[in-house]
Protein backbone atom coordinates (compact mmCIF):
# COMPACT_ATOMS: atom_id res chain seq x y z
CA UNK A 1 0.00 0.00 0.00
CA UNK A 2 2.98 2.29 0.61
CA UNK A 3 3.81 2.38 -3.09
CA UNK A 4 0.24 3.60 -3.64
CA UNK A 5 0.86 6.61 -1.43
CA UNK A 6 3.78 7.59 -3.61
CA UNK A 7 1.49 7.76 -6.63
CA UNK A 8 -0.78 10.39 -5.10
CA UNK A 9 2.24 12.26 -3.77
CA UNK A 10 3.74 12.43 -7.22
CA UNK A 11 0.44 13.60 -8.69
CA UNK A 12 0.02 16.31 -6.07
CA UNK A 13 3.60 17.50 -6.38
CA UNK A 14 3.23 17.77 -10.15
CA UNK A 15 -0.07 19.54 -9.63
CA UNK A 16 1.65 22.12 -7.45
CA UNK A 17 4.85 22.36 -9.49
CA UNK A 18 3.21 22.96 -12.87
CA UNK A 19 1.48 26.20 -11.86
CA UNK A 20 4.74 27.28 -10.23
CA UNK A 21 6.62 26.71 -13.50
CA UNK A 22 3.89 28.51 -15.44
CA UNK A 23 4.24 31.38 -12.99
CA UNK A 24 7.99 31.65 -13.49
CA UNK A 25 7.89 31.22 -17.28
CA UNK A 26 4.86 33.22 -18.34
CA UNK A 27 3.36 31.71 -21.48
CA UNK A 28 2.38 34.42 -23.84
CA UNK A 29 -0.87 35.02 -25.67
CA UNK A 30 -2.74 32.27 -27.49
CA UNK A 31 -0.93 29.28 -26.02
CA UNK A 32 -1.45 30.32 -22.42
CA UNK A 33 -5.09 31.05 -23.03
CA UNK A 34 -5.62 27.74 -24.80
CA UNK A 35 -3.96 25.82 -21.98
CA UNK A 36 -6.16 27.59 -19.46
CA UNK A 37 -9.31 26.78 -21.41
CA UNK A 38 -8.37 23.14 -21.96
CA UNK A 39 -7.64 22.75 -18.25
CA UNK A 40 -10.96 24.28 -17.38
CA UNK A 41 -12.74 22.01 -19.86
CA UNK A 42 -11.01 18.92 -18.53
CA UNK A 43 -11.94 19.85 -14.98
CA UNK A 44 -15.59 20.24 -15.95
CA UNK A 45 -15.66 16.92 -17.80
CA UNK A 46 -14.07 15.17 -14.81
CA UNK A 47 -16.68 16.81 -12.60
CA UNK A 48 -19.54 15.56 -14.75
CA UNK A 49 -18.14 12.03 -14.80
CA UNK A 50 -17.73 12.11 -11.04
CA UNK A 51 -21.37 13.12 -10.67
CA UNK A 52 -22.62 10.36 -12.97
CA UNK A 53 -20.43 7.65 -11.42
CA UNK A 54 -19.96 8.58 -7.76
CA UNK A 55 -18.24 5.31 -7.01
CA UNK A 56 -15.59 6.13 -9.58
CA UNK A 57 -14.05 8.74 -7.30
CA UNK A 58 -13.52 6.08 -4.65
CA UNK A 59 -12.08 3.65 -7.16
CA UNK A 60 -9.64 6.21 -8.51
CA UNK A 61 -8.71 7.27 -4.99
CA UNK A 62 -7.92 3.69 -4.02
CA UNK A 63 -5.94 3.19 -7.21
CA UNK A 64 -3.63 6.13 -6.45
CA UNK A 65 -3.38 5.35 -2.75
CA UNK A 66 -5.86 7.73 -1.16
CA UNK A 67 -8.38 6.33 1.32
CA UNK A 68 -11.59 7.93 0.13
CA UNK A 69 -12.88 9.62 -2.98
CA UNK A 70 -13.81 12.67 -0.93
CA UNK A 71 -10.17 13.10 0.09
CA UNK A 72 -9.10 12.92 -3.52
CA UNK A 73 -11.61 15.62 -4.42
CA UNK A 74 -10.28 17.78 -1.62
CA UNK A 75 -6.69 17.39 -2.88
CA UNK A 76 -7.85 18.25 -6.37
CA UNK A 77 -9.67 21.28 -5.04
CA UNK A 78 -6.57 22.51 -3.25
CA UNK A 79 -4.49 22.24 -6.42
CA UNK A 80 -7.09 24.02 -8.52
CA UNK A 81 -7.40 26.72 -5.87
CA UNK A 82 -3.67 27.36 -5.72
CA UNK A 83 -3.38 27.39 -9.50
CA UNK A 84 -6.27 29.81 -9.70
CA UNK A 85 -4.70 32.08 -7.12
CA UNK A 86 -1.37 32.15 -8.91
CA UNK A 87 -2.81 32.80 -12.36
CA UNK A 88 -5.07 35.50 -10.98
CA UNK A 89 -2.21 37.29 -9.28
CA UNK A 90 -0.15 37.11 -12.48
CA UNK A 91 -3.09 38.59 -14.33
CA UNK A 92 -3.48 41.34 -11.74
CA UNK A 93 0.18 42.26 -12.08
CA UNK A 94 -0.26 42.66 -15.82
CA UNK A 95 -3.30 44.85 -15.29
CA UNK A 96 -1.38 46.87 -12.70
CA UNK A 97 1.32 47.53 -15.23
CA UNK A 98 -1.22 48.66 -17.80
CA UNK A 99 -2.86 50.99 -15.29
CA UNK A 100 0.55 52.47 -14.53
CA UNK A 101 1.19 53.13 -18.20
CA UNK A 102 -2.22 54.69 -18.65
CA UNK A 103 -1.91 56.85 -15.56
CA UNK A 104 1.55 57.99 -16.63
CA UNK A 105 0.44 58.93 -20.12
CA UNK A 106 -2.54 60.79 -18.74
CA UNK A 107 -0.47 62.62 -16.13
CA UNK A 108 2.08 63.77 -18.69
CA UNK A 109 -0.56 64.71 -21.24
CA UNK A 110 -2.37 66.85 -18.68
CA UNK A 111 0.70 68.57 -17.26
CA UNK A 112 2.12 71.72 -18.77
CA UNK A 113 5.13 70.69 -20.85
CA UNK A 114 8.42 71.37 -19.08
CA UNK A 115 9.84 74.80 -19.74
CA UNK A 116 13.06 75.35 -17.86
CA UNK A 117 12.66 77.68 -14.91
CA UNK A 118 14.84 80.73 -15.04
CA UNK A 119 15.15 81.52 -11.34
CA UNK A 120 18.72 82.44 -10.61
CA UNK A 121 19.92 81.39 -14.03
CA UNK A 122 20.93 83.58 -16.92
CA UNK A 123 18.78 82.99 -19.95
CA UNK A 124 20.63 82.16 -23.07
Amino acid sequence: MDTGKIVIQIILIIGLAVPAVILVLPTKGARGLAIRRLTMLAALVVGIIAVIFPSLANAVANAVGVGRGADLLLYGLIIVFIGYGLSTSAHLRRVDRQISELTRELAIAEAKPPAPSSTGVEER
Partner: protein
Amino acid sequence: MAAGGDFDGAPLATPEIARGTWLVVPLFNEAPVIREVIEHTRRTFPNVVCVDDGSSDGSADEARAGGAHVVQHAVNLGQGAALQTGIRYALQDPGARWIVTFDADGQHRTEDALRMVERLRAEPLDIVIGSRFLDGRTKPGLAKRLVLRAAVIFQRVTSGVRLTDAHNGLRAMTREAAGRIRITQNRMAHASEIVDQLGELELRYAEEPVHVIYTDYSRSKGQSLWNSVNILSELIFK
Protein backbone atom coordinates in the same frame (compact mmCIF):
# COMPACT_ATOMS: atom_id res chain seq x y z
CA MET B 1 33.04 76.89 -7.64
CA ALA B 2 30.23 75.13 -5.91
CA ALA B 3 31.48 76.10 -2.51
CA GLY B 4 29.62 79.41 -2.46
CA GLY B 5 26.20 79.61 -0.91
CA ASP B 6 23.41 82.06 -0.34
CA PHE B 7 22.15 83.45 2.95
CA ASP B 8 20.91 80.22 4.47
CA GLY B 9 23.36 77.79 3.07
CA ALA B 10 21.90 76.72 -0.27
CA PRO B 11 24.88 75.87 -2.48
CA LEU B 12 25.10 77.63 -5.81
CA ALA B 13 25.35 75.64 -9.00
CA THR B 14 27.05 76.93 -12.12
CA PRO B 15 24.55 78.21 -14.72
CA GLU B 16 25.33 75.19 -16.87
CA ILE B 17 24.38 72.78 -14.10
CA ALA B 18 21.42 74.83 -12.87
CA ARG B 19 19.99 74.93 -16.37
CA GLY B 20 20.77 71.35 -17.34
CA THR B 21 19.62 69.57 -14.19
CA TRP B 22 16.11 68.38 -13.43
CA LEU B 23 15.16 67.20 -9.97
CA VAL B 24 12.53 64.47 -9.98
CA VAL B 25 10.66 64.39 -6.69
CA PRO B 26 8.05 61.69 -6.04
CA LEU B 27 5.39 63.23 -3.86
CA PHE B 28 2.83 61.49 -1.72
CA ASN B 29 1.09 63.26 1.14
CA GLU B 30 3.97 65.53 2.14
CA ALA B 31 2.00 68.77 2.30
CA PRO B 32 3.51 69.89 5.65
CA VAL B 33 7.05 70.02 4.29
CA ILE B 34 7.06 69.94 0.50
CA ARG B 35 6.87 73.68 -0.09
CA GLU B 36 9.87 74.41 2.07
CA VAL B 37 11.83 71.52 0.54
CA ILE B 38 11.10 72.76 -2.99
CA GLU B 39 11.87 76.39 -2.20
CA HIS B 40 15.16 75.38 -0.68
CA THR B 41 16.26 73.05 -3.46
CA ARG B 42 15.21 75.50 -6.17
CA ARG B 43 17.85 77.96 -5.03
CA THR B 44 20.35 75.44 -6.33
CA PHE B 45 18.32 73.57 -8.94
CA PRO B 46 15.55 75.71 -10.46
CA ASN B 47 14.09 72.85 -12.52
CA VAL B 48 12.07 70.64 -10.23
CA VAL B 49 9.28 68.29 -11.22
CA CYS B 50 7.10 66.89 -8.45
CA VAL B 51 5.12 63.81 -9.34
CA ASP B 52 2.10 63.89 -7.11
CA ASP B 53 1.17 60.26 -6.68
CA GLY B 54 -2.48 60.67 -5.85
CA SER B 55 -1.97 62.64 -2.63
CA SER B 56 -5.08 63.50 -0.65
CA ASP B 57 -3.66 66.40 1.36
CA GLY B 58 -2.98 69.26 -1.03
CA SER B 59 0.65 68.30 -1.63
CA ALA B 60 0.35 69.27 -5.29
CA ASP B 61 -0.74 72.82 -4.52
CA GLU B 62 2.03 73.21 -1.95
CA ALA B 63 4.58 71.98 -4.47
CA ARG B 64 3.27 74.41 -7.08
CA ALA B 65 3.45 77.21 -4.54
CA GLY B 66 7.08 76.27 -3.98
CA GLY B 67 7.71 76.70 -7.70
CA ALA B 68 7.87 73.11 -8.86
CA HIS B 69 6.39 71.71 -12.04
CA VAL B 70 3.70 69.28 -10.98
CA VAL B 71 2.59 66.13 -12.75
CA GLN B 72 -0.33 64.35 -11.14
CA HIS B 73 -1.12 60.66 -11.14
CA ALA B 74 -4.87 60.15 -11.13
CA VAL B 75 -4.46 57.21 -8.76
CA ASN B 76 -1.75 56.24 -6.32
CA LEU B 77 0.75 53.98 -8.06
CA GLY B 78 3.80 54.01 -5.80
CA GLN B 79 7.18 55.67 -5.66
CA GLY B 80 8.76 53.69 -8.48
CA ALA B 81 6.00 54.64 -10.89
CA ALA B 82 6.23 58.26 -9.80
CA LEU B 83 9.97 58.31 -10.52
CA GLN B 84 9.47 56.87 -13.98
CA THR B 85 6.78 59.45 -14.75
CA GLY B 86 9.00 62.28 -13.52
CA ILE B 87 11.93 61.11 -15.59
CA ARG B 88 9.76 60.86 -18.69
CA TYR B 89 8.47 64.37 -18.04
CA ALA B 90 11.89 65.92 -17.46
CA LEU B 91 13.32 64.30 -20.59
CA GLN B 92 10.76 66.23 -22.64
CA ASP B 93 12.96 69.25 -22.02
CA PRO B 94 15.70 68.93 -24.63
CA GLY B 95 17.96 70.98 -22.38
CA ALA B 96 17.80 68.38 -19.61
CA ARG B 97 21.27 66.88 -19.34
CA TRP B 98 21.18 65.45 -15.84
CA ILE B 99 18.35 63.94 -13.82
CA VAL B 100 18.45 63.78 -10.04
CA THR B 101 16.00 61.71 -8.01
CA PHE B 102 15.30 63.44 -4.73
CA ASP B 103 13.00 62.70 -1.79
CA ALA B 104 10.13 65.00 -0.93
CA ASP B 105 10.44 64.76 2.84
CA GLY B 106 13.62 66.79 3.24
CA GLN B 107 15.95 63.87 4.00
CA HIS B 108 18.30 64.69 1.17
CA ARG B 109 20.67 67.61 0.96
CA THR B 110 21.07 69.75 -2.12
CA GLU B 111 24.82 70.05 -1.64
CA ASP B 112 25.09 66.25 -1.97
CA ALA B 113 22.98 66.33 -5.13
CA LEU B 114 25.13 69.11 -6.54
CA ARG B 115 28.35 67.20 -5.90
CA MET B 116 26.87 64.21 -7.68
CA VAL B 117 25.92 66.22 -10.77
CA GLU B 118 29.37 67.81 -10.79
CA ARG B 119 30.88 64.34 -10.86
CA LEU B 120 28.67 63.36 -13.79
CA ARG B 121 29.86 66.47 -15.62
CA ALA B 122 33.53 65.92 -14.89
CA GLU B 123 33.88 62.15 -14.95
CA PRO B 124 32.96 59.49 -17.52
CA LEU B 125 30.00 58.19 -15.51
CA ASP B 126 26.38 57.39 -16.33
CA ILE B 127 24.97 57.43 -12.82
CA VAL B 128 26.09 58.44 -9.35
CA ILE B 129 24.27 56.91 -6.41
CA GLY B 130 24.23 58.33 -2.93
CA SER B 131 25.50 56.18 -0.11
CA ARG B 132 24.94 56.70 3.58
CA PHE B 133 27.71 54.33 4.55
CA LEU B 134 30.82 55.70 2.89
CA ASP B 135 31.44 57.92 5.88
CA GLY B 136 30.17 57.99 9.43
CA ARG B 137 27.80 60.93 9.34
CA THR B 138 24.50 59.10 9.03
CA LYS B 139 23.47 57.06 12.02
CA PRO B 140 20.55 54.73 11.42
CA GLY B 141 19.43 52.36 14.16
CA LEU B 142 20.91 48.89 14.53
CA ALA B 143 17.93 47.03 13.07
CA LYS B 144 17.83 49.30 10.04
CA ARG B 145 21.57 48.91 9.55
CA LEU B 146 21.28 45.13 9.58
CA VAL B 147 18.44 45.10 7.06
CA LEU B 148 20.24 47.49 4.72
CA ARG B 149 23.37 45.36 5.04
CA ALA B 150 21.42 42.25 4.06
CA ALA B 151 19.90 44.12 1.12
CA VAL B 152 23.38 45.07 -0.10
CA ILE B 153 24.54 41.46 -0.01
CA PHE B 154 21.39 40.24 -1.75
CA GLN B 155 21.98 42.84 -4.43
CA ARG B 156 25.58 41.86 -4.98
CA VAL B 157 24.55 38.27 -5.50
CA THR B 158 21.63 38.97 -7.84
CA SER B 159 22.92 41.84 -9.94
CA GLY B 160 26.70 41.76 -9.58
CA VAL B 161 26.64 45.48 -8.84
CA ARG B 162 28.70 46.43 -5.82
CA LEU B 163 27.16 49.24 -3.83
CA THR B 164 27.38 50.01 -0.15
CA ASP B 165 23.85 51.38 0.16
CA ALA B 166 21.10 49.45 -1.55
CA HIS B 167 18.19 51.77 -1.02
CA ASN B 168 19.28 55.35 -1.29
CA GLY B 169 16.79 57.57 -3.05
CA LEU B 170 19.35 60.20 -4.03
CA ARG B 171 20.71 59.45 -7.47
CA ALA B 172 22.05 61.54 -10.31
CA MET B 173 22.14 60.27 -13.86
CA THR B 174 22.86 61.51 -17.31
CA ARG B 175 20.10 62.06 -19.81
CA GLU B 176 21.19 58.97 -21.72
CA ALA B 177 21.11 56.73 -18.65
CA ALA B 178 17.74 58.13 -17.56
CA GLY B 179 16.34 57.35 -20.99
CA ARG B 180 17.48 53.75 -20.85
CA ILE B 181 16.40 52.85 -17.33
CA ARG B 182 12.86 51.47 -17.15
CA ILE B 183 11.28 51.34 -13.74
CA THR B 184 8.43 48.85 -13.76
CA GLN B 185 8.31 48.08 -10.04
CA ASN B 186 5.70 50.49 -8.84
CA ARG B 187 6.28 50.25 -5.14
CA MET B 188 9.47 50.14 -3.14
CA ALA B 189 11.37 47.46 -5.07
CA HIS B 190 12.26 50.04 -7.72
CA ALA B 191 15.50 50.85 -5.90
CA SER B 192 16.71 47.30 -6.43
CA GLU B 193 15.34 47.32 -9.93
CA ILE B 194 17.41 50.36 -10.84
CA VAL B 195 20.51 48.65 -9.50
CA ASP B 196 19.71 45.49 -11.47
CA GLN B 197 19.48 47.60 -14.60
CA LEU B 198 22.83 49.24 -13.88
CA GLY B 199 24.26 45.77 -14.22
CA GLU B 200 22.22 44.74 -17.25
CA LEU B 201 22.74 47.97 -19.19
CA GLU B 202 26.41 48.03 -18.14
CA LEU B 203 26.13 51.62 -17.00
CA ARG B 204 29.17 53.25 -15.48
CA TYR B 205 28.28 53.93 -11.87
CA ALA B 206 29.91 55.43 -8.83
CA GLU B 207 28.90 56.12 -5.27
CA GLU B 208 29.07 59.42 -3.52
CA PRO B 209 28.92 59.76 0.25
CA VAL B 210 25.75 61.57 1.25
CA HIS B 211 24.23 62.55 4.51
CA VAL B 212 20.62 61.61 5.14
CA ILE B 213 18.84 63.73 7.68
CA TYR B 214 16.60 61.52 9.77
CA THR B 215 14.22 64.13 11.09
CA ASP B 216 11.32 63.18 13.32
CA TYR B 217 9.11 63.88 10.34
CA SER B 218 10.95 61.55 7.99
CA ARG B 219 11.29 58.93 10.70
CA SER B 220 7.58 58.92 11.32
CA LYS B 221 6.97 58.39 7.62
CA GLY B 222 10.03 56.33 6.81
CA GLN B 223 10.11 52.77 5.60
CA SER B 224 9.38 50.38 8.38
CA LEU B 225 11.41 47.23 8.50
CA TRP B 226 8.32 45.29 7.48
CA ASN B 227 8.75 46.94 4.15
CA SER B 228 11.88 44.91 3.48
CA VAL B 229 9.69 41.81 3.41
CA ASN B 230 7.45 43.50 0.86
CA ILE B 231 10.43 44.55 -1.23
CA LEU B 232 11.78 41.00 -1.31
CA SER B 233 8.46 39.54 -2.36
CA GLU B 234 8.00 42.18 -5.04
CA LEU B 235 11.41 41.28 -6.44
CA ILE B 236 10.83 37.54 -6.40
CA PHE B 237 7.28 37.48 -7.79
CA LYS B 238 7.83 39.83 -10.68
